[in-house]
């Protein structure tokens, strides 16, 4: 089965397929596509705006949200397979009201093999996860920007 087919059917074939396929051979472009959740985050935000503007009813919202969550889980799955940082999800999410930034700038620092380079770490999805008690910092930003 070709790579693309495997990717399409990853929920079915994913785990067993991976044992037979060296991830090292996956091209950078494919890897980027599989592990980048920026597009999903943006779609979630615009989904939110559409509800707020009344362009979408609740039922449609729930259906579209479910599809996006599925994609987020897929991204998470692939990030794990590639040994990259994983997290709870996107920075900002939909609600009936305005959405504050709920998960800005949490830095995921994966341990173990295949850990990230500094550049990649910057791109790690932001959001929750299981936090370690040490190495925390807190900062405020009172700028006008």
């Amino acid at each position, binding site marked *: 089965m070709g790579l693309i087919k495997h990717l399409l059917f990853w929920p079915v074939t994913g785990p067993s397929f991976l044992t037979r396929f060296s991830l090292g051979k996956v091209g950078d472009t494919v890897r980027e596509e599989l592990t980048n959740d920026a597009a999903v985050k943006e779609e979630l935000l615009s989904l939110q705006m559409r509800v707020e503007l009344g362009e979408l009813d609740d039922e449609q919202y729930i259906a579209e949200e479910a599809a996006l969550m599925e994609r987020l889980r897929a991204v998470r799955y692939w990030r794990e397979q590639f040994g990259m940082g994983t997290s709870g999800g996107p920075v900002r999410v939909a609600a009936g009201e305005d959405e504050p930034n*709920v998960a800005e*700038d949490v830095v995921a620092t994966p341990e*173990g093999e295949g850990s990230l380079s500094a550049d990649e770490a910057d791109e790690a999805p932001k959001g929750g*996860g*299981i*936090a*370690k*008690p040490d190495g*925390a910092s807190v900062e405020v930003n009172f*700028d006008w920007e």
Partner: protein
Amino acid sequence: MNEDANVVEEGKYVYCIIKSPKEREFGQIGIGEANSPVYTVHHGDLAAVVSDTPIRIYDPTRENVLAHEFVNETVMREYTVIPMSFGTLFRTEEDIVELLKSTYQAFDDVLEKMKDKIEFGLKVLWDRDKVVATIEEENEEIRRLRDEINRNAQSSTYFARMQLGRLVEAALEDAGNHYVRDIHEALKPAAVASRSNKPIGDRMILNAAFLVDRDREKNFDDAVKEISRKYEQLLSFKYTGPWPPYNFVNIKLKLEKATG
């Protein structure tokens, strides 16, 4: 996705950090199906607001995010809060105490700086057609070119239409920048800080958060009302809050590598 459903490891979901020497309970409003009680874990006079939860990844669904926010808003009515990122779990109470202990000074400083400060959200969307109409009204070059094209509908060149399109686009961008600047100018005297996030969708020209002193809330409200009245023909303002200072404080944590 956890296949080993028999062994469910328990952890703590953390919503925010507050200053409270005494233990508190905030009701059965925790995230997740169980709606677990929300309570405090202490180190000295610092406290983390938490609820018990199975160790899992919380998808940022509307339901989950609203649960997270609802707790923060509840706590915020009585305390200055440093909000935690959505979805942050700790394995044990000891881990949380360790966090509070090792980051005590920083949390203490930030809580002092954030004291009695609240956040408001302001999204501004424009009605593109109306703005274009205003631009045509005010910009003589555009008006002239448009009239010319209209008069000679048959013979007007592709080039002339392109030129009009370009002029309108440029004027739109100028107008958008002008509105945003004007809104900032109007709100600056009543706010402590501001942060602009990326606009969502093509109708939004401003997606900002403002940090405001609690006792200046009225001034800020009035300033928002005034500026939205000034532009009511062209722009729609979506004003929300008060929120915890989500956009002005960051707790950076090291996360374990999740294993699904």
